[in-house]
Every structure is written in C-alpha cells, then in structure tokens.
C-alpha cells in the first residue's frame, strides 16, 4: 500500500479547468517534486491535498486514512508556504509551538491568562517547550527562539517555518515553493538541507516548484504538470533522458532541448532538410512529428564532414562549458550545441560548420506531443539525400 495516493482529482473554477483528473502515488518516505510552469495547477493540487481547498471529484488517501472529507486541521499534514506564513506577533518558539498547542491543549487551556490557571496544562506546556527546543536545536535555530519574524533574515524565517512544520511529526509533508523567496546562494544551500531533513524524518513529501533544476536535484521522483494534467511521473534521470512528452522534454534541461518539426515521408523515413533519417521501425507515412535532441548530444565538426551543415551565430562561454548557437543552413532552424571548452577552440561567429548528432539520442514525438518509441531503433547511419 502506498503512503499517499491521489486518485483522479479534478477542480475547476467555472469554465476554467485547473485540474483535469490527477492521479499520483507516493511510497513511504518518498520525496516527490511537482513541477511545471505557473498556472499548471501544481499549487492547487497541493492545497487540495492539504485540505485548504476542496476538490470537485477524486479522493486522497494517506497512511490508510481517507482524507478527502477531512478539514485541514484533521489531516495531520504539515505545510511550508512560499511566504512562510509565520505569525508575525509570535516569537519563533511560539510559532513552532502553535501546532502542538492546538493539538494538545483544550481551547480553554489555550486562553491567555485564564488558561494558565487551569489544572494539568503545566505539564503539557513543559512538554511542548521541550519538543520546540529539540526541534530548534536540530535545525540550529535555538538562538532565534525569542525573536519575532520581523527581526529575522529570510533564511532564518524559512528555517523557523520548517521547524513549525516538522515539530508535530506529520503524516505528510507539503511544501509550496519554500525556497523561492531566498537569494540564489542560499537557495542552493537550502536544497541540500531540505533533502537531508526529509531523509531524517522519513515522511512522504510533496514539493511544489517552478524550478526544474530544483525538482531534478532534490526529488526521488518528479511529476511534471502542464495546464492541469500530469504529463509524467518518474525518477529525475528518466524525466531528463527519456521524457514521455515533448512538453516535458522542453521544460526540463538547460539550455532547452533542440526541436525540429518534420513530416514522415511516404517510405517511412524522416527528412531533415537535406538529410534523411532511417528508422528501423516504421512511422506512419505522412504524419507530423517533432524530432528532438539535447544540446550535449550534438558535436561540431569541420565543414564537409557528414552531418548537418550550419553556421555559428553566437558563442556563450560558461566556464566549464561553451554554448554554441547555430543556424541550420538547409532549413534555417536554430540548433544549440553544448561543448567542452577544449572542443570549442577555433569556433567563431559566422563560421560554417557541420553538426553531428548522436543518432541514438534522437527522440521523436507525435503531433499530440506524445513520445513515439520508433526513435529507439533509429540507425546511427545518416545518408545523403542529394548529391
């Protein structure tokens, strides 16, 4: 049985279908990143799992409990917000204590002044304080406990928000872009910390981000969402190397994957400008396809080598690699090539070259964007069509 299963969740506002039937399963202790461009529905899905919003249909089961009809407070989920949503009038320790106080104290005992006079609450409060201090120590924020959020830096606030989420030992951990308000340096550092915390807590986690690099580097599995649909849910390397949909291929990876629109010829081969690619399997003749290849699987050879003739337009030196922007002579499409600096020596803008793709890395997508597995049998042999 999976730790979390989301089944066929839909949500719409009027004619606007935010979620078009999302299903997703998470194993115990798994870290799943929900990634996609803004407006794809990932945050709505998270808020539905949290119980902050209701789904139109579908169900959510976690740890064997059906959460669908429970309010947020009863779901035992924790959430870290993009804005951190710390209570500005409470100190860090009071903030962290809120979920414990809500669970362990009665509403009478929580009342200011009067509450502290009621019997039995003293031991509970002491226990809460102990848990808060332990939590703070493990996140190295014990020196901040008496400060209010207004007196903390962004990074410190983020840790307090994490502490508040983790202190109650939730059954499910939800994070809504928790790093996007941090500056770039801190963000990379915080990625590692969150993964580390997740491993220690062992709680299934849904992590929403619009940053594909964050998703790939942190998650056990990545769920790519586009306009209300889940396109692919797989391990990061599968998402990157073996995308199931052209949108997934385009969304993931920097620089963006190279794509060339084409049509299958009558004999089942594919023509790219003056070049023909011969797949072993047959593609339906006459159908529209898109051929895609990542920039690191292209190399640049001298003019005259078998390959795709092109001109260099611009070079970007990035230190460990060089990005070469080219334009194919035959069809005018742009191709981006990523090279090691040593391979880029002697390249200048305007130079005519030949681009050589690694044939087994070519991918073919159908008109609907879905991956056509025909590419697996592409021959590496590229033969000249004319002359």
């Amino acid at each position, binding site marked *: 049985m999976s730790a979390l299963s989301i089944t066929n969740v839909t949500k719409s506002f009027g004619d606007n279908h935010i979620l078009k039937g999302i299903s997703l399963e998470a194993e115990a202790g798994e870290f799943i990143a929900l990634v996609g461009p803004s407006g794809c529905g990932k945050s709505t899905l998270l808020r539905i799992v949290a119980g902050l919003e209701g789904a139109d249909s579908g169900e959510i089961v976690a740890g064997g409990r059906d959460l669908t009809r429970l309010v*947020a407070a009863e779901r035992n989920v924790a*959430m870290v*917000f*993009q*804005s951190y949503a710390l*209570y500005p009038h409470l100190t860090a320790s009071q903030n962290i204590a809120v*979920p414990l106080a809500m669970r362990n104290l009665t509403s009478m005992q929580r009342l200011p002044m009067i509450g502290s006079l009621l019997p039995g609450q003293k031991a509970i409060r002491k226990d809460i304080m102990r848990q808060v201090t332990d939590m703070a120590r493990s996140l190295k924020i014990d020196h901040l406990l008496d400060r*209010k959020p207004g007196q903390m830096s962004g990074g410190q606030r983020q840790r307090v928000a994490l502490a508040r989420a983790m202190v109650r030992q939730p059954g499910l951990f939800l994070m809504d872009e928790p790093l996007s308000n941090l500056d770039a340096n801190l963000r990379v550092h915080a990625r590692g910390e969150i993964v580390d915390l997740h491993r220690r807590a062992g709680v299934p986690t849904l992590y929403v981000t619009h940053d594909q690099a964050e998703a790939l580097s942190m998650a056990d599995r990545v769920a790519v969402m586009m306009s209300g649909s889940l396109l692919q849910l797989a391990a990061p390397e599968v998402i990157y190397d073996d995308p199931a949909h052209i949108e997934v291929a385009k969304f993931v990876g920097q620089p963006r994957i190279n794509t060339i629109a084409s049509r299958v010829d009558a004999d089942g081969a594919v023509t790219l400008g003056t070049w023909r690619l011969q797949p072993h399997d047959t593609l339906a003749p006459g159908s529209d396809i898109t051929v895609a290849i990542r920039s690191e699987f292209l190399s640049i050879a001298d003019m005259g080598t078998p390959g795709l003739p092109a001109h260099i337009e611009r070079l970007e030196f990035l230190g460990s690699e060089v990005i070469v922007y080219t334009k194919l002579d035959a069809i005018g499409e742009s191709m981006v090539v990523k090279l090691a600096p040593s391979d880029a020596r002697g390249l200048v803008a305007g130079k005519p070259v030949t681009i050589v793709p690694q044939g087994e890395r070519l991918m073919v997508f159908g008109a609907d964007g879905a991956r056509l597995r025909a590419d697996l049998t592409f021959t590496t042999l590229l033969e000249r069509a004319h002359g």
Partner: protein
Amino acid sequence: MADMTAISLPVEKSRPIVNVSERHEARVAWMLAAPAMILIVLFIVAPVVAVITLGFTDFELGYSTFKFVGFENYAELFGDRTFRQSLWNTAIYTAIVAPASILLGLGVALLIESETVGRSFFRTAYFLPVASLLVAMATVWQYLLHPTIGPVNNLLNLIGLPGPNWLGSASTVLYSLSMIGVWQTVGFNMILFLAGLTAIPRDLYSAAEIDGAKSPIDRFFLVTLPMLGPTTVFVTTISIINAVKVFETVKTLTEGGPNKASEVLLFTIYQEGFVYLRVGYASAMTVVFLAVLVVMMFAQYRLVDRKVHY
C-alpha cells in the same frame, strides 16, 4: 544626518563644490518649507502659547486691560459645579461611545468580510452616517426621538411600552446623545477595520488551518485579533479623541440641557469663551482639554511602541 555633516566638515575645504551644492539644496528647502513653517507658527504654535498664557489671566473680551492672576482660574475650575459636571458628562459619553462604536465597528467589519453577498451595499449603509452632515442628521434624530410625534416612541407605544422623553429628560439625554454618537461613528471604525482585515495575508489563515485551528473562533484568536492589533490601537485612540470632542449634537439638540445634564467639555468652553466672553477662564478650561488629548496621544504612542509593533 547629523553624523554626515560631522564627517564632511574636514573635507569641506578641499572639495568646495559639494559644499556649494549642499548649501544650495538647503536654501531651496528653506524656501519650499517657509510658508508652511510661518503658518504653523502663526496658527498653531502662537495660539497654543497664547491660550496657555491667557489661562493665567482674567482677560475678558470687551475690556481693554487684564492682569495675571496665577492659578486662580484653575482654582476656580475645581470648584466650578458646571465644569465638574461637564467633565463627568464627557467621561460618561466617551465611556459609552468609544467602546460601543469600536466593538460594533469590528463586529460589522467581521460580518461583512466573511460575507460574499451584498458587501458593498452593507458597507455603504453603515458608512452613510459618516458622510452625512452631523448637524442635519442630529435634526432628523430630534424628530425620530420626539416624545409625542416621534416614530421611535410611536413604535414603542405599538408594542405597549411607554417611550421616554429621550432628549428632554435629564436622566436619558446623555444616553440618547451617546446613541446618536455611536450611530455616527460605527461606519468610520468599520472602514478602518475592513482595511485592517484585508491587509492580513491569506497564507496565515491557511497556516492556522494546517496547524490545527479547526474552528473559525480558533483562527480568530490565533490570526485575526493579533493581526488587527495596530488597527485596534489606532481606532481606539481616534474614537476616544472624537468622543471627547463631542459638540455638534449637543449644540444642535440640547444646548447642554436639561439642567446641565448634557453639558460637555467643548460646549462649556464655547459658552464661557464665546457667549460669556470670559476668555481667561475659558482658556484655562482649554488647557485642561488639551492636556486630555496629549495624554491620549501619548498613551497611543507608548502602546504602539511596546505591544503591538512587529
């Protein structure tokens, strides 16, 4: 700014250009601020100094001479039955109007905020008295509360209750005026509370729900009330100060009567100063009035600094 000039002093001789442009900036600033400065001195500072000074004199309008009498006016104030009555009435009026209009303002704001239907209608309805001429609306209230032909008493008679002489009897007049005061200020407080409510980030309510605040009451005490802290302090100060300044309704409806039962601070000052023309004595009263305002404002600054600031 002070330490900047201190640092730039030794550099001045070697870099005179900076000095010139700074001096030019200061000169322009003076020119821009001068009219305001002169008028503040003319219409605020000088009159305040004058009123404090006059409070120590026996100046009366129409007499050309006056002499300083020390604290005689203040001594007279303590023994003045009318003034003591007036202070007491103002205190009672404030003690009713301020809390009632704050609580009602907050209540109405919360109800409107959580309602989706008719928001702007309700906002308009409750705010209308704030935008209306108080003297005019006081006249309407006088008709509504008329002991024999007024709709309020006619309504009470319908259900068999005897209607009091709202504005005409010493035992009810202050409460009737308070009621009109509450009616007039609830809308103002409501608008301020509504602004305070919309400024609360939605995420905090989400966080509260996740943290286990199940009922709206839990969330009210965890998020709404503390987040309204600064607004509440401000609304409280404004409400108290405005209640202490009650004048229009008294002047229009009761002239302090019957039998001084609705004599309030500003009305007494007005009578002494501008009807009996005892300027010196009225100035002493004004100083007391000003002292009350200063204490209120000071209390607000302290409270804002200490408790609700984050």
